[in-house]
Structure formats: structure tokens, C-alpha cells
């Protein structure tokens, strides 16, 4: 049942990412809704489920891209592992949640854009300040909205039950 829910949620997020998110583009910078869902799943269900979900979602997103196939999968997998690695009892503290969301998102964007800039003339600092950080911060804004609207989605509830 949970798998069906995840399939529906990821399908919806991918459709919204491809149809609606481009409307929020600011100078080519867009938030990553699929990434927010991957982190949420890693929070709630742990890193193993998060890694699996991130891999599959990345494959689908890469299918709609003209870039290298597998970049989103790799970035999602590493991000989900980081997001799901924190102890469940820490997840309730807002400061910890913010730090965890930021680190997971930053890892995703660093890996993703590092691969995309291989072979280009863009320097690492240029990519960091002009691409990685703007994408990370924009995604964090949407993540904060999602966290305020659906705090339980980031509550780590399923992991707490499992650890008892």
C-alpha cells in the first residue's frame, strides 16, 4: 500500500516538476520538487527506502533530459542517504531539520552540477555561486513551505515506530 502511495506521489511530483515548476523559473534557476519528495521519503521511511525511491525518480527525470542519463539518480541516491542517516530522535528539532535539509539538498546539487560542468570552461567557484547555491536556496524555500504546510511529511514518524 505504501509503495502505491509513493508511486502516486512521485508520479505527481514529476508531472508538476515538468509542467508547473518551469513557471517559477528565475534566471534559469528552478526548485527541485522531486528532490523535496526524496528527502521527505528518506526522513519518514529511512535511508534504504529513500535511496531506492531517489534512484527510480532520478531515472525518470533523466529520461526527460537531454543530459547524461543517471546524473539525477546518483545525486538523489547520495542525498537520500544523507537525509536518512540522522537519528530519528533528532529529527523533531527544527534547527536540526533545517541543517539536514540544507546538507542533503547541497549534496544533491553539488554532485548534479559537478557532472554537468565536466568539459566546460566554468570554474568551480563560478558554478558554486552562480548555479549550485541559487538552486539549493530556491529548493530550500519551497522545502520550507512544504515543511510548514505538511510538517508530518518530514517528521520521521515511520522510522520512530520501527526503532521501538
Amino acid at each position, binding site marked *: 500500500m505504501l509503495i502505491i502511495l509513493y508511486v502516486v506521489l512521485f*508520479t505527481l511530483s*514529476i*508531472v508538476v516538476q*515538468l*509542467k508547473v*515548476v*518551469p513557471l517559477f*523559473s528565475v*534566471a*534559469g*534557476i*528552478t526548485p527541485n520538487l522531486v528532490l523535496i519528495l526524496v528527502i521527505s521519503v528518506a526522513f519518514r521511511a*529511512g*535511508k*534504504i527506502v529513500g*535511496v*531506492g525511491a*531517489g*534512484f527510480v525518480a*532520478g*531515472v*525518470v*527525470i*533523466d*529520461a*526527460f*533530459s*537531454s*543530459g*547524461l*542519463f*543517471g*546524473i539525477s*539518480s*546518483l545525486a538523489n*541516491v*547520495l542525498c537520500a*542517504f544523507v537525509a536518512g542517516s540522522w537519528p530519528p530522535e533528532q529529527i523533531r528539532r527544527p534547527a536540526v531539520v533545517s541543517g539536514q535539509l540544507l546538507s542533503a539538498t547541497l549534496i544533491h546539487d553539488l554532485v*548534479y*552540477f559537478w*557532472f*554537468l*560542468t565536466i568539459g*566546460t570552461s566554468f570554474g568551480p567557484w563560478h558554478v558554486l555561486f*552562480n*548555479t549550485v547555491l541559487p*538552486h539549493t536556496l530556491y529548493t530550500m524555500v519551497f522545502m520550507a513551505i512544504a515543511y510548514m504546510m505538511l510538517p508530518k511529511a518530514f517528521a520521521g514518524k515511520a522510522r520512530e515506530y520501527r526503532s521501538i
Partner: protein
Amino acid sequence: MVREWFVDRKDLVILLVSVVSSLVLIFSSDDSQIHFLRAWALGSFGVILDEVTSVEKYSDVYEQNVWLRDQNASLMLENSRLKEAAVENARLRSLLSFKTKSQLQLIPARVVGMNESGFINSIVLDVGKADSIAVNMTIVTAQGVAGKVYQVDEHFAIAQLLLDRNFRVGAMVQRSRTMGIMRWATGSQVVLAAVPKRSDVVVGDSVVTTGLSTIFPGGLQIGRVVEVNEDEQGMFMNVAVQPTVDFSKLEEVFVVKMQPLLSE
């Protein structure tokens, strides 16, 4: 013993398997199996995207709009050809004859999805092999060149936009016939690269496709020169070009039905 080790560290094992699988996918991006996987995912999710897009459109207004855009694009192409003809006429009037360009056939397509990530910019179109679309066919709008077909499924296609880091097209300044290679620079700007120093290029010049390409027809509008700089030490000029296509408002495009020599 080994089984216990794997069970104890199953999170690390799954991470390792996923990372290795991702790397295998990355390093075999051009394999035929990966193209098949891409096409399958495109076909499966394309249906959903298409349905969502269908809800958005109002059929009468849409049909009329498509017809008008079709006319507009045809007029744009005719205009481009006429401009080209005028320039060619002045340059080649001593010649007895020259070949007239063939009429380009356009296939209208709706944009049902957009993947924008700073370096990689692509759109999903609701046309595919069933509509005679092939890889590397040119994508145009009424304003000019938008990109080319990158991946094609039976009913959907992915187009690589002019603003994609991997996109290249042979281009020239329409007035002076100075040639170069058009590629993405940053944001919504492209550059005409490999233009030798002291070439005749000024701000405001119109840039068009050369026609020497095996993919793109000649004379299609790409953009206007907005900045020209001569690098003191380099051999080439830096020619910044603003594309004429507004990529933030791509809703309908046209695929030029010309079989590229490099199609798959």
C-alpha cells in the same frame, strides 16, 4: 558470516549498488539500451503529461492559434529566405543561376513538458516517430531556431534547446557572412564562437544558420549580436548573441521535416 555482514550493512550495500548503477548509466548514456530505456520512460510519462496539457487547452482557441502560428512561422521562414535571397542576389549577381531553396515543411508540436536545470535545457513534445519525427530534426518557432530533436519515441520527443550546454549550430552574421559556431554561454545568452579577430561583426547584426550543417537548414534566424569584444591575447572575437526565441514562453513549436544526414 558473509550474510550477516551484508545484513548488518545493508544500507551501505544498497547505497553502493545504487551508486554503481547510476555510474553505469552515466557512462553508458549513448548505448542503445539506454536510448530504449529513455524512450520507454518518455512514452510512459509522456502520456500523463499530454493528458495534463490537454486539460489546459481550449480546443477552438488552440486550433486557431496553431493555424495562426503555422502561418506566422511560414511567413517568418519566407521572410528569412527573402532576406537571404536579397543578400545572395547582391553577392552573386554576376552568376548566371543559383539553386532556389526548397520549401520547408513544418510539423506543429505542443510543448508538454520542460526540463530546465541551468546547464541542461530540454522540452518534451507531443509528436514522435508516428508523425515522421526523427532525431536531429530542427525545432523552430515563429521567432527562429529553438533547438533540435534529441530523443524520439512513438508519440513523444525530447528537444534539446539552444540554451543547452551541449547544443552547437553553425551560424553566420547575415550581413557580412562571417561564420562561427553558436553555443550557449550563460543564462539566456548564446555566443558566436570561433570568429576570427577583426571580422566584420557589429552590435545589432542578425545571426542566421549557415546551411553548411548536416542538421540545420540555412538562413534560419537565431538571434542578434548584443556585444562584441576582442580578446587581446586570443585569436578570436567574443560575440554575444541574444536569441530571438523567448524560451520562457515556449508553448508550441514546429519541427522542420527535413531528414538530417546525422539522424539515427
